């Protein structure tokens, strides 16, 4: 069950929304799409789902083109949340589940389990418009996963939720992955992707800037972050060879360095000068990588 995107390009008139995207999304893993608004994440998802056709290139799942015959195996949570405001939660879910070829009885049973999991069983027979936004979002998440899809596509699943609900939903996503669902999700929050995904792709203006496994990306990036807090002036370090970036903070300095050897050298140098309160060598964050690759701040 591999999702494969080969040379995928999507144009709307003169505007190219996605440019030459090549991706292999492994089975039973969580794959993260990162990128600012307008980067082409939703367009890519719509192409994967077959709602939009790629202008060029091929998208296959297990070597097959994705069409409506595969819809029972696919779950989708769109970025723009939407449900029928006037329908009851149960009617809503049963309808959407039936469209994915699920028997109404099974759907109702699954719904009970999910509502229990999200601690909102009392909303089963409430109209959607009576629910809070966060709870509507949970219902929509249930609608996307109720038929136990093999491939789950989540467009910004955590946006607009409070931290408690974000954790709840994250846990649900992790559980699904552990049960063998392949999950593709997008976020503009780097930390969510860092936390959940083995593989990722950062899109910028329709083109992939970074892609691959998280560990690999960080390792090949090479550069590391160094945080030093000390009682003496550290500003001279910004001119040190091997330091690519520096930022003074009230308690010390934050550096980006080329490799671990630079850190070692710096440690020896400042150890003679006085007491060091903090010396942390850290992996680069995705944000650092993004800024480095795109040349501008992301958030």
């Amino acid at each position, binding site marked *: 069950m591999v999702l494969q995107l080969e040379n995928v390009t999507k144009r709307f008139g003169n505007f190219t929304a996605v440019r030459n995207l090549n991706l292999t999304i492994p089975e039973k893993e969580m794959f993260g799409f990162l990128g600012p608004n307008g980067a082409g994440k939703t367009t890519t998802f719509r192409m994967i789902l077959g709602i939009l056709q790629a202008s060029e290139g091929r998208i296959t799942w297990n070597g097959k083109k994705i069409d409506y015959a595969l*819809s029972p195996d696919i779950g989708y949570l769109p970025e723009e949340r*939407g449900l029928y405001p006037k329908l009851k939660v149960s009617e809503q879910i049963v309808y959407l589940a039936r469209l994915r070829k699920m028997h109404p009885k099974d759907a109702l049973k699954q719904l009970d389990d999910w509502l229990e999991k999200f601690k909102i069983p009392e909303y089963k027979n409430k109209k959607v418009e009576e629910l809070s936004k966060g709870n509507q979002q949970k219902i929509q998440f249930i609608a996307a996963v109720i038929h136990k899809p093999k491939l789950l596509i989540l467009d910004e699943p955590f946006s607009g939720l409070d931290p408690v609900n974000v954790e709840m939903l994250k846990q649900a996503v992790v559980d699904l992955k552990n049960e063998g669902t392949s999950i593709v999700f997008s976020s503009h929050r780097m930390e969510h992707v860092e936390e959940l995904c083995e593989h990722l792709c950062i899109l910028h203006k329709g083109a992939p800037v970074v892609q691959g496994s998280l560990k690999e990306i960080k390792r090949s990036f090479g550069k590391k972050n160094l945080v030093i807090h000390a009682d003496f002036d550290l500003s001279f370090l910004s001119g040190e060879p091997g330091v690519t970036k520096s930022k003074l903070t009230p308690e010390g300095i934050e550096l980006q360095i080329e490799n671990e050897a630079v850190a070692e050298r710096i440690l020896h140098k400042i150890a003679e000068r006085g007491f060091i309160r903090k010396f942390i060598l850290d992996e680069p964050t995705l944000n650092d990588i993004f800024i480095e690759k795109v040349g501008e701040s992301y958030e």
Partner: protein
Amino acid sequence: MNNFWVVFTHTFVTKIKSKQFLWVTAITVGITLLLVYLPSLIDKFNGDGEKKIALIDQTGQLEEAFKQSAANLDKNLKFTETAAEEQELKEKVLEGELDGYLLLSFDEAGLPRGVFKAETLTDQSLAGNLQMALQQVRSQRAAQLLNLNAEQLAMLNAPADFRQAAIGENAKTEEELNQARGLVYSMLIIIYFAVIMYASMIATEVATEKSSRVMEILISSVSPVTHMFAKIFAVASVGVVQMIIILAAGYGAVKRNMDTFTGEFFQFFGFGGFSLQTIIYGIVFFLLGFLLYATIAAFLGSLVSRIEDVNQMVSPLIFTVVIAFMLAMAGLSNPEAPFVTVTSYIPFFTPMLMFLRVGMLDVPLWETALSIGLLIGCIALFAYFGAKIYKGGVLFYGSAGLVKQIKRALQMTKENG
């Protein structure tokens, strides 16, 4: 189950269960029944209708004859003979004890004449009946004076024999025309309201799904074209169910009240020839008209992003229906007019105008078939383009003029292969 049927049953059940459906059906059935029972209701409100009239026969000879002929005209007339003074009677009339009083006397020629006095002169039928009764008495009296026998008198009074007949082979008789008119008229009104109501319902339905953004989930599991047609057919079925309920109620009531449908109005707007053929044509034209307008409404609905814009978007469509209806109304009294014949072939007008013609006239089968063929062709054409527009329309949000939106939707569909 096929997704077409999932969307179909879901839409159908939701609509049938909706409060809107229940209310519209109940109110329409109510109005239908009210109209049917109106004549008998009016009679009820008029009470037993007994009219008390004091009769002052100054001749002393006319009383019996007058009472008899008055009773033949209106059983509710009750006469009290009186020798009371006029002043006293006046008071009784003003108090409401009497409906009026009638003075009978002879004129110079020895013929009867009468003066009827009532509080107001609003009840023309009462005065009319009294006058007619007196007229008969006068004729008898005159015949006596002229020494005519009963036979001669009858000959004088007999009405002229006058009939009319159409000599065209297929023409309906005047009577048949009048009988058809009431049914055609009611069916036209039903078609008019149903098409407007259900077409708007479809457009609103599509726009709701789009604006509430359910659409994106829907079209990720069912193709937009399947979705569109399932919706159209579901709403059409809701319409047929509603029509059947209303027609059944109306038919039952009309059958039971047939005898109350008398008088001039019903001579013109008759229900007498309750033709099954007309009803079947009515349903066929309703369905075809609905399909045409609903297909257009569906893609128009797919072009708007907000519910508020739906009305603006479908207004050209509604205008067309209104024009068709007005043409049909104008054609009702003259179904053979050339403008009716011509417009009955224009698909947008066919559902009402061809129906008017087949209901009122004996239209050759090929003409009906031709117009239905054109209509079906037009529906297929709009369904084809509508599906293209719909496919693109449901995917983009934004607002622009109708033509620009259609262009954008078609572009979107084209790029989507």
